[in-house]
């Protein structure tokens, strides 16, 4: 197991280098540069422009800049934001809990609803629930996130007035962010109504962000279950006199989980990508919004560092998923 882990970690190295290369190249391919953007409409004199170029290291050839950047990463230094002059690392960890909280909630929403829905659909194959669920899932999957978000805001927040439109918590509350997770912090603060305010702010972004993973998980669970339900060992389980719950929920689901877990792992990538859009729409102060803002400001270190950290996050999640396979299905367990 340890040997397997080590070999898997080793494959991270090329992926890691690839990510740095791509993020480094892409942001530089965008027209415009940080200095022009920072100067804004006032503009900047050619002398001052040259001076800043040297100061920010842009006078060096690109490959030298890249190796300087790599050298920094190896030492754990992701650079400083051009705009805020704070280390990228600090900014990331100040904002990351917000994204993590939203992503976790979206994942719980997607798995919690998608898994049972897929199982029920498979068991009732061809019946009304199955058809209704699968067509709904297809709609959910094909719906553009921004449009779905706006629709929900108009109906739920606007017409019905049930949830707030944006932000993480009502302005009436203030407390120190001990953990960075608003749900936990609001509970710790002990202020009345703080928790429910945080919760109500979470509902819409969670639904919006979780919709696509929910649809994918439900469909994947259904097809995996259908395959497993025709297996011989399911017949054996039925011959034992097990209840439908014992057959479908234990014997079948355990075998169907492998492809579902894979999809869940892959959804984490989608989720973080979706978070960028969702956070922008709901003014959610997480890394998604931070990344978008930084791209518009041509804040090279932030974009590079942010992308890198997100990529590492996705890699870790997928490694965890691979490790989980063995626990779920002993047949593919490594020694």
């Amino acid at each position: 197991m340890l040997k397997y882990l080590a070999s898997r970690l080793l494959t991270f190295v090329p992926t890691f280098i690839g990510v740095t290369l791509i993020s480094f190249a892409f942001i530089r391919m965008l027209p415009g540069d940080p200095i022009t953007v920072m100067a804004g409409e006032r503009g900047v004199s050619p002398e001052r422009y040259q001076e800043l170029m040297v100061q920010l290291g842009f006078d060096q050839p690109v490959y030298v800049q890249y190796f300087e950047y790599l050298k920094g990463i190896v030492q754990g230094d992701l650079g400083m934001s051009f705009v805020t002059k704070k280390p990228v690392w600090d900014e990331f960890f100040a904002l990351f809990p917000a994204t993590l909280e939203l992503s976790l909630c979206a994942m719980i929403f997607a798995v919690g609803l998608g898994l049972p829905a897929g199982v029920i659909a498979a068991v009732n194959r061809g019946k009304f629930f199955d058809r209704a669920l699968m067509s709904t899932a297809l709609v959910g999957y094909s719906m553009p996130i921004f449009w779905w978000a706006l629709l929900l805001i108009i109906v739920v927040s606007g017409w019905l007035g049930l949830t707030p439109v944006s932000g993480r918590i009502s302005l009436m509350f203030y407390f120190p962010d001990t953990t960075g997770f608003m749900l936990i912090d609001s509970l710790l603060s002990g202020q009345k109504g703080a928790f429910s305010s945080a919760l109500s702010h979470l509902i819409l972004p969670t639904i919006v962000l979780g919709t696509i993973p929910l649809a994918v998980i439900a469909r994947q669970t259904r097809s995996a279950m259908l395959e497993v339900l025709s297996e011989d060992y399911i017949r054996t389980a039925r011959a034992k006199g097990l209840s439908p719950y014992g057959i479908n929920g234990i014997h079948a689901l355990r075998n169907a989980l492998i492809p579902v877990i894979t999809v869940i792992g892959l959804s984490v990538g989608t989720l973080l990508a979706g978070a960028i859009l969702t956070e922008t729409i709901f003014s959610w102060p997480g890394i998604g919004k931070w990344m978008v803002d930084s791209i518009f400001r041509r804040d090279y270190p932030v974009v590079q560092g942010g992308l890198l950290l997100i990529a590492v996050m996705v890699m870790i999640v997928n490694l965890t998923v691979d490790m989980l396979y063995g626990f779920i299905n002993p047949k593919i367990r490594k020694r």
Partner: protein
Amino acid sequence: MALLEIRNLSVDFTTASGAFRAVDAVDVSVDKGEVLAIVGESGSGKSVSMLALMGLLPWTATITADVMEFEGRDLRALTPKARRKIVGKDIAMIFQEPMSSLNPCFTVGFQIKEALRLHMNMDRATRHKRAIELMDMVGIPAPESRLNTFPHQMSGGMNQRVMIAMSIACNPKLLIADEPTTALDVTIQAQILDLLTGLQRDTGMGLILITHDMGVVAENAERVSVQYAGQKVEDQPVYDLFARPHHPYTAALLAALPERATSKLLPTIPGVVPGQFDRPKGCLFSPRCAYADDRCRSTPPIPCGSELGLARCHYPLNATEEVKA
């Protein structure tokens, strides 16, 4: 009273190309402690009739029967929940493919104990003890350490032993073995059959052995029921069947045994079992029968009396002169 009594059982499958009758008016009865063999080619409805009894057929199957009683209880009238109390406890079944019939995600110990937890009301420690005892009974060496192995870590023969241990866990009154040795090596086949008949003798349970191997029938069964294309064509005690088969199909099956071959060329039954679209109008066996005439081809026969082994034939073989008249 018979342990199991099924009369006029029919199973129809709805398929994309119309209804298909897989089992047609079959009677099955088994007494306590009796060993019944059901023989027939592939596609003759042997397994389907037993799966219908167990309630294991997919929803596309329609099951009809005049009588379907186990120990005098009408199985058709039971709720699914009440039926699950009988299936798996009093009636148990083992299958053809031991490797795929066990769940790959759970240890064999878990799978054996599951049946005990479900039907026997045992606490954890008793279940553990009983599982070891069962694995010992079916001849698995070092049962205690084998409890924690997964099906893929054992051979096919060992897995079939686990299946047997699982099926006899709740002391069933009737055990249905659906071609239990087909997927196994010849040497293992004999061991498994010995184990099954031994267990049957020790516990006095009824045993239904589904097979297409006449050798297995001769060695293990007391009574034989021959099925062809979904119909029961003959039913006799094993000795009488081998001595005086009444249905031409039974006779042809017996003639095809290598041990009985007299010429250098092994006799075969030409053709295949009729499928959904080529069912003959008259006797279902008539296209392949050496004795068939126009009557056979036009009028379906009804079963003869028990003195002729209930043979479903217009011209039963080996009939004595008195019976014939």
